[in-house]
C-alpha cells in the first residue's frame, strides 16, 4: 500500500501569495474526509484570519478508470459501468451513452420509448434536486429539510424499482429503446407523485425562501457573472442563475422533448440564493413535462427492430431462426458499428453532459470520453470563493451541486 502524499509549501509556490511564506497567512487543509464536502474533495485554503485569500481544489480521490475499463468490454457490457459516474442522475449517464451509440449506428428508438425515457430522466432530475435540497441547507444548519426531502425521494425510487428492479443503478435504457415495457402500475404511481409533490414543495418554500437566516447566509455570496461562466465553461443552473437562458433541452433537443411545453427558469444575481430559486423552479417545470408526457404516451413497441444491433424479444427466439442467430451473435461477439466519431449531449442537473465516442469497426468502443459538468464547476470554485469566509465556502460548494464521481470518473 502506498504512502500518504503530502504537499510542502514549496510545491504550492505558484498558487499561494507571498504572505504564506512569511507566516502572515495560514495554509489549512480541508481534507478529503469532511462532513460537508459532498464526497471526497480536498481543498487547500490560505486564510487571513477567517477570510479566504486563495483556494486550491484537489481532485482525483475517486478516480476509477471507467473510460479505460469501458474500452475492454463490448458496447452492451460497457453500459453497466456508466451508471456509477454521476450517481445522482443515474438514468442520465446511460441515456447519453445510448444516444451516442444510436447516433453512431443509425438506430431510431420508437416514440413510446422516447416518451418513457423523458419521464424517467425528468423524475431522476427531480430526485437529484431533492437530494440537493436536503443536503445543501443541512450544511448551513437547516437539518429538517433533509428528512423531508428524503421522504419524497423514496417515492421516486419506488418507481425506479417497479420499472427495472433496482433503486438507483437501473441500466433500464438500452441502445435502440428500453429493456422492456413498463408494468401497468407505472402510470398510477407517477400520477400519485405528481399529486403529492407540489404541496410538499410549498412546505419547503415556507421553510427557506423568506427565512431571514437563510437569506443572510446566501444572498450576495458566491457571485459569478455570465462572461466568466462562459469562459470557464460553466453550464447548468449555475449559468442560468447569472441570466443566460441556455439549456441543452431547448438548444439541441433529444428524445422528442421539443413537443412538450416548458420554460427555462433564470435569475440575474448569480449568487447562492439565485441558484436555489432556479433549482426550485426547475423541479416544477420537470413536473410539467412529466404530466404532458404521461397524457400523450403513445402505444407501440419499446425497441427498434434492427436486430443487427438490438436484441430480439425472447418470445421470437423460440420460433424464428434468424432471431436466434442474431441473439447468439450479439451475446458472444457484440455488434460492430461503422468507423467514425460522434459527440452527443444531454442536460443533467449539473450542466451539459456529453459523450465523445470513437469507433474503429470493432465490437468494443475504441475511445469513449465523458464530458462531465462537475469538472469545470469545481475549476471555477476559486473565482467564487475569494474574499469570503470559511463558513461561506461550505455554502458555495453545496450550491454548485457537484458530484465527485462525475468529476473524477
Amino acid at each position, binding site marked *: *500500500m*502506498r*504512502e*500518504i*502524499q503530502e504537499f510542502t509549501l514549496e510545491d504550492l509556490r505558484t498558487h499561494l501569495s507571498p504572505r504564506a511564506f512569511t507566516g502572515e497567512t495560514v495554509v489549512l487543509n480541508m*481534507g*478529503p*474526509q*469532511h*462532513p460537508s464536502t459532498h*464526497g*471526497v474533495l480536498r481543498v487547500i485554503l490560505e486564510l487571513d484570519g477567517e477570510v479566504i485569500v486563495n483556494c486550491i481544489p484537489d481532485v*482525483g*480521490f*475517486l*478516480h*476509477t*478508470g*471507467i473510460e*479505460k*475499463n469501458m474500452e475492454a468490454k463490448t458496447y452492451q457490457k460497457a453500459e*453497466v*459501468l456508466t451508471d*456509477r459516474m454521476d*450517481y*445522482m442522475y443515474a438514468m442520465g449517464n446511460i441515456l447519453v451513452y445510448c444516444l451516442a451509440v444510436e447516433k453512431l449506428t443509425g438506430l431510431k428508438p420508437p416514440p413510446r420509448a422516447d416518451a418513457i425515457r423523458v419521464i424517467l430522466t425528468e423524475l431522476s432530475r427531480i430526485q437529484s434536486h431533492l*437530494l440537493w435540497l436536503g*443536503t445543501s441547507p443541512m450544511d448551513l444548519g437547516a437539518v429538517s429539510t*433533509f*428528512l423531508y426531502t*428524503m*421522504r419524497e*425521494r*423514496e417515492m421516486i*425510487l419506488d418507481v425506479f424499482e417497479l420499472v427495472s428492479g433496482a*433503486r*438507483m*443503478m437501473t441500466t433500464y435504457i438500452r441502445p435502440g429503446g428500453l429493456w422492456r415495457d413498463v408494468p401497468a402500475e407505472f402510470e398510477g404511481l407517477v400520477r400519485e407523485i405528481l399529486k403529492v409533490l407540489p404541496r410538499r414543495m410549498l412546505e419547503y418554500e415556507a421553510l427557506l425562501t423568506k427565512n431571514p437566516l437563510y437569506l443572510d447566509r446566501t444572498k450576495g455570496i458566491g457571485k459569478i457573472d455570465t462572461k466568466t461562466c462562459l469562459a470557464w465553461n460553466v453550464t447548468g443552473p449555475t449559468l442560468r442563475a447569472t441570466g443566460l437562458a441556455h439549456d441543452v433541452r431547448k438548444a439541441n433537443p433529444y428524445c422528442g422533448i421539443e413537443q412538450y411545453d416548458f420554460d427555462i427558469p433564470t435569475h440575474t444575481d448569480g449568487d447562492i440564493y439565485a441558484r436555489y430559486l432556479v433549482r426550485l423552479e426547475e423541479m416544477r417545470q420537470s413536473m410539467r413535462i412529466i404530466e404532458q408526457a404521461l397524457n400523450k404516451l403513445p402505444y407501440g413497441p419499446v425497441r427498434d427492430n434492427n436486430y443487427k444491433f438490438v436484441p430480439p424479444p425472447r418470445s421470437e427466439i423460440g420460433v424464428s431462426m434468424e432471431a436466434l442467430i442474431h441473439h447468439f451473435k450479439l451475446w458472444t461477439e457484440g455488434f460492430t458499428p461503422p468507423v467514425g466519431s460522434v459527440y452527443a449531449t444531454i442536460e443533467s442537473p449539473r450542466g451539459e453532459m456529453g459523450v465523445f465516442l470513437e469507433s474503429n469497426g470493432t465490437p468494443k468502443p475504441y475511445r469513449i470520453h465523458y464530458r462531465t459538468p462537475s469538472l469545470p464547476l469545481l475549476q471555477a470554485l476559486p473565482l467564487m470563493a475569494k474574499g469570503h469566509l470559511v463558513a461561506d465556502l461550505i455554502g458555495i460548494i453545496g450550491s454548485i451541486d457537484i458530484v*465527485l*464521481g462525475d468529476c*473524477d470518473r
Partner: protein
Amino acid sequence: MGIEQKAGNSGFITTSLESAINWSRTKSMWPLLFGLSCCAIEMMAMQASSYDMSRFGMELMRASPRQSDLMIVAGRVSQKMGPVLRNLYDQMPDPKWVIALGDCASCGGIYNNYAVYQGVDEIVPVDVYISGCPPRPEGLIHGILTLYEKVRGEKLAHWK
C-alpha cells in the same frame, strides 16, 4: 416489562462483566462519516426517516475519527484515497470495527482495473462485508445487526 420485573423485582441483576460490556458497546455505536461514492447515498437514505438508523443509536455520524467506534467504508477506494483511509483508521481509538459496504469496498466490485483497490481489506481489517451494488438499506441494517451479534460474542481475553 422492564428488566427489573423480569429479574423478579429483587433489586439486583446478575450477569457476567463480559456480556454487560458487550451489550453496552452495541447500544450506541457511533459511525464515522466515510461515504465515498454511490453507496454513501444509500447510507444517507438509511439515516433518513423511512429506514431509521437512530433506532440503533446511530443517528449522528461523527466527522472526527477520534469520536467514533465504527467505520462504514461506503464506496470505491481509489489509489489516492487508500493511504488517507489507513490514516483515519489509525486515528480511531480502540475498540473499533469496520464494515465494508457494497461490492466495491468488499472486493473491488465491477472495477477490476489499475485505479481501484480490490477490496478495502487490503488496507484495514474488516469485520462485516455487505454485498450489493448499491445494497438496499435493509441490507445495511442486516449487516449492522450481524455486527452486533459478533460484538456480543467477543471474549474478554481477546480485548486489546
